[in-house]
């Protein structure tokens, strides 16, 4: 079996919103008194940095979950695990 993807894109147009998000989110991190490696921003990177001894996460959807849960954690909201069993008796 074979899959071919021909993604004809303009890299700078794809990068521009990432620059905006990273600038705003790093500023948020700073105002939230977070320091050092911001693993929750892995979502934006090809080769995410992680603490020594931790392997970086590359899966885009796990990265997105990490990102959103960090925002919830910052605001003291419940983290979302997508368990689902809590809705059934």
């Amino acid at each position: 079996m074979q899959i071919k993807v021909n993604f004809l894109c303009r890299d700078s147009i794809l990068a521009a919103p990432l620059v905006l998000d990273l600038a705003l989110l790093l500023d948020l991190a700073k105002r939230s008194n977070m320091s050092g490696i911001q693993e929750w921003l892995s979502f934006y990177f090809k080769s995410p940095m992680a603490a020594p001894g931790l392997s970086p996460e590359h899966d885009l959807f796990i990265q997105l979950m990490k990102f959103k849960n960090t925002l919830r954690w910052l605001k003291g909201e419940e983290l979302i695990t997508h368990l689902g069993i809590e809705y059934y008796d």
Partner: protein
Amino acid sequence: MTKKIRFYDTTVSKPRPIKPAKGKLGILLPGMGAVASTFIAGVLSARKGMGKPIGSLTQMGAIRIGKRTDHNNPKIKDFVPLADLHDLVFGGWDIFPDNMYQAACKAGVLEHGHLAPIRKELEKIKPMKAVFDSNYVSRISGTNVKKGSSKMDLAQQLMTDIQQFKKTNKCDRIVIVWCGSTEKYQTQAPVHQSWAAFERGLQENSPDISPSQIYAYAAVKCGIPYANGAPNLSVDIPAIQDLAIKHNVPICGKDFKTGQTFMKTVLAPAFKARLLGMHGWFSANILGNRDGEVLDDPEAFKTKEESKLSVLDQILQPDVYPELYGNVDHRVRIVYYPPARRQ
């Protein structure tokens, strides 16, 4: 070197104190070419209501809060206090003296119709003189370059630039996002292991300290958050990471996930989820811009290749699934082909 991992207490459900996003936020960009000019033009257009910030989670994304039955999905920008687009000020450094209108025209990414209404604002944004070292980026050279007696002197010049920019533009806060070129391949050297060794290296002009590391050092020393958009080691060294903790600065990197790797980290988890085995993954990038020109150098390509190759192994876990992914032939090629920029 083994290091203790710091744990935040994530069980506490009380909100962390977040300072409000008051005043102006200066965004400084080392490297003001295609990415930087497209970014700035995009924000200026969005501010005028002439375009939407497509692809930006902070501007267009929503986040579910509470139970599914709550139906509470605020916009991310309404949920956490972020700087408003109208409060952003732009600046940076580049080896070419082109203002952001000229840079955007040369890059050929956005069309004239997009640039014309914001031309005056773009023309006002001009790069400061850059720190450049042809040992690290060999395929391009420019005239808008700093001279210094040592790498420490160059770092201090950058810190002066940052403070000057902050004052002139009346910024409350600054962040730095690297949008410059990929540097030649580099592994960690002794000079990268501690900030004391790094500072000595700056003074003694250590050949192991790259320009992007000088920017990162200057940022962290000034207490300014730093994001690394290229695969350069830059902030990915203990010296800068320790300094970031010491100065209470958030840092992140590396290498923006945009085209090919973005697709790869979407598709690979799908095959992996269904446990569909794999013989190989061949990827080719055809690039027609300055990025491609720089990556045409084998030393720069090696840095990029390493960044792009790391992705599949972590997702596919060949050590856990040797019979499915133990023998994946993963190759990445980059071809610099100038006509591609016309597409």
